């Protein structure tokens, strides 16, 4: 599939933004200044970006505890995200959500989610709404191999199929549910699970943007055309621990180093576009430098932003219809 020039540039920028955002959080979290818990998406950037390249603001996504990448790929601004993670009033959820509850409904980003397997049921609701309203939208759930064993996920696969919803189940399989290997914890295969529900199945190398873009394009087109839900199984690797501070004693010696050197989606993207003469490297270097400044500014702004006040406590608690 030929990818438009501007989509290539925008996708690279998203992946670079996710990488730098997460690398910076890795350092900042260790200082103890950030409240709560953060889970980093480094190494998995191509998945969120390759999928979201096919989505617009009228499509909806539900994310996971490892949600920063999905937010950025769906277009949530890094300044508001960084402030949110720092718990500041200027954050996208006014500092009351934090890393695991970043949401921006105006962009169809239903939220990161502290509950493993929490996203799939949400997108069944969103997909039902797309179907009933006939707005042409699709709903996408990102979930991990760990969440693939949750009842909520399996029930959602069933319900989406029964109702023929425009839903896309993106299983981001990084091989570990927290510290437990998927090879141990997941019975059967994701492919066979999809088949069990009669659901079309696609899979791809999640460290290769072009592979994800291709497979996601087919999967999303299927759902958008009204042919029912699909599963997209993305094989990838996370570079940092399950959470920040995880000593990762469950990973083999050299495993992460090999992923970083051989399966870096950004390096592979640069290699691919030069080999095929799709883009000029200097354009990518410019993006790298712009993103660096943007992240620096976001951290500075977040650190200097005001905290929520007691008076803010009851704001946004109830929704009026």
């Amino acid at each position, binding site marked *: 599939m030929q990818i438009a020039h501007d989509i290539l540039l925008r996708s690279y920028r998203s992946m670079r933004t996710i990488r730098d955002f997460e690398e910076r959080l*890795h*350092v900042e*979290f260790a*200082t103890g200044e950030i409240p709560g*818990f953060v889970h980093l998406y480094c190494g998995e950037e191509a998945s969120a970006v390759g999928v979201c390249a096919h989505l617009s603001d009228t499509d909806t996504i539900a994310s996971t505890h490892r949600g920063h990448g999905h937010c950025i790929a769906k277009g949530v601004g890094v300044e508001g995200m960084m402030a949110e993670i720092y718990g500041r009033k200027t954050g996208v959820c006014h500092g009351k959500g934090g890393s695991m509850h970043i949401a921006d409904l105006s962009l169809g980003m239903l939220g990161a989610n502290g509950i493993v397997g929490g996203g799939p049921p949400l997108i069944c609701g969103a997909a039902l709404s797309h179907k009933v309203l006939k707005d042409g939208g699709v709903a996408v759930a990102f979930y991990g191999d760990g969440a693939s064993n949750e009842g909520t996920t399996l029930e959602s696969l069933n319900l989406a199929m029964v109702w023929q919803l425009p839903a896309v189940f993106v299983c981001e399989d990084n091989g570990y549910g927290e510290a437990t290997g998927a090879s141990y914890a997941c019975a059967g295969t994701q492919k066979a699970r999809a088949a069990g529900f009669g659901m079309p199945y696609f899979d791809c190398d999640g460290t290769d943007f072009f592979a994800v873009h291709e497979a996601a394009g087919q999967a999303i087109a299927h759902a958008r055309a009204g042919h029912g839900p699909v599963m997209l199984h993305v094989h990838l690797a996370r570079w940092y621990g399950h959470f920040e*501070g*995880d000593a990762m004693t469950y990973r083999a010696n050299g495993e992460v180093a090999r992923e970083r050197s051989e399966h870096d989606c950004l390096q592979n993207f640069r290699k691919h576009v030069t080999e095929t003469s799709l883009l000029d490297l200097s354009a990518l270097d410019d993006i790298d430098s712009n993103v660096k400044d943007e992240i620096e500014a976001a951290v500075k702004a977040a650190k200097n932003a005001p905290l929520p006040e007691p008076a803010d406590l009851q704001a946004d608690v109830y929704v009026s219809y």
Partner: protein
Amino acid sequence: MTDLITPITMPKFGLAMTEGKITSWNIPSGAQVEAGQEIADIETTKITNGYESPASGTLRRQIATEGETLPVGALLGVLAEPAVSDADIDAFIAKFQADFSSDNAADTPADHAEPIMVSVGDLTLRVQEAGQGDATPVLFIHGFGGDLSNWMLNQNALSTDRRTVAFDLPGHGGSSKNVGDGTPAGFAATTAALLDKLGITSVHVVAHSLGGAIALELAKTCPQKVASLSLIAPAGLGQSINMDFIEGFISADRRKTLEPVLNYLVHDKTLISRKMVEDIIRFKRLDGALQGLQTIAKACFPNGRQAEDLRSVLASFAGPAQIIWGEADEVLSPNDAKNLPDTIPVTLLPQTGHMPQLEKAADVNAALIKLAK
């Protein structure tokens, strides 16, 4: 110059880490390090992990020593380029340490200090201190099955101009489980030894329930240590006691069975929170906790009656004294406060159970402050 200096600080791992131990430095002072290089191993209560350097540079100083436990954010070392002078680094360290210690002090005012463990003879007692000042200190003695948290609504109110001490009696809370003979006289001897250990010669004693009997024993044996007596629903002034409470407290091992027992303690039953019930169940499951309670109950309330009559001690006590009691007390009867000398004021609180210091904290605090003036 400070832009060229990077502090290496105790990292935060995971959700709840507040402090960590530096188990080893992986590089010597003076070595060159790269950003992301693991420069030290840090151990927490949950995890041991390598600490990645946040920046590249020369490790100019190792401030923390191996084996040292420090709070998150504390200075472990300093990275800087060789061009930075030693004097600049010293100045940076001095400023960092000054800022860090004042930030920490602001976070933990004395009122919220953690309890400390104090050795008294063979026993270790958990002690919560608060306040400072010249006025005579206040000592809080809790009752059967209680602990120092019984005074959570009172201790700070009395700590504005003086030192105050609450502690867990032996067999209770975080103190040693050995209750000795379990008599008020035995606990009074331990209490006197604790005061000696803390260097306190004289205190206003505030005591609740069985603690009241302990306070009276203390006044009998060490009158010079007792500046005044504020007895809240005290034992030792009558014979009857609600044995359903005592026996139920000892035998209940689940929330369902303990909750109705704890309901005896208060007039407003909604005050018995789930957390309170669970905390008590957790305490009772500690080794020796149950045996301690049984020993005390046997020594203090044999045959369903209070063993000790200490009315004469109160009547002959030379200092000021007062009684505070809830009218709706279901454990000890406020009738026990009748027929005491006129010099001892009795405050009866309406619609209040056995724990006025929790249920009517403001009224109780006002009375305590008045007597301690």
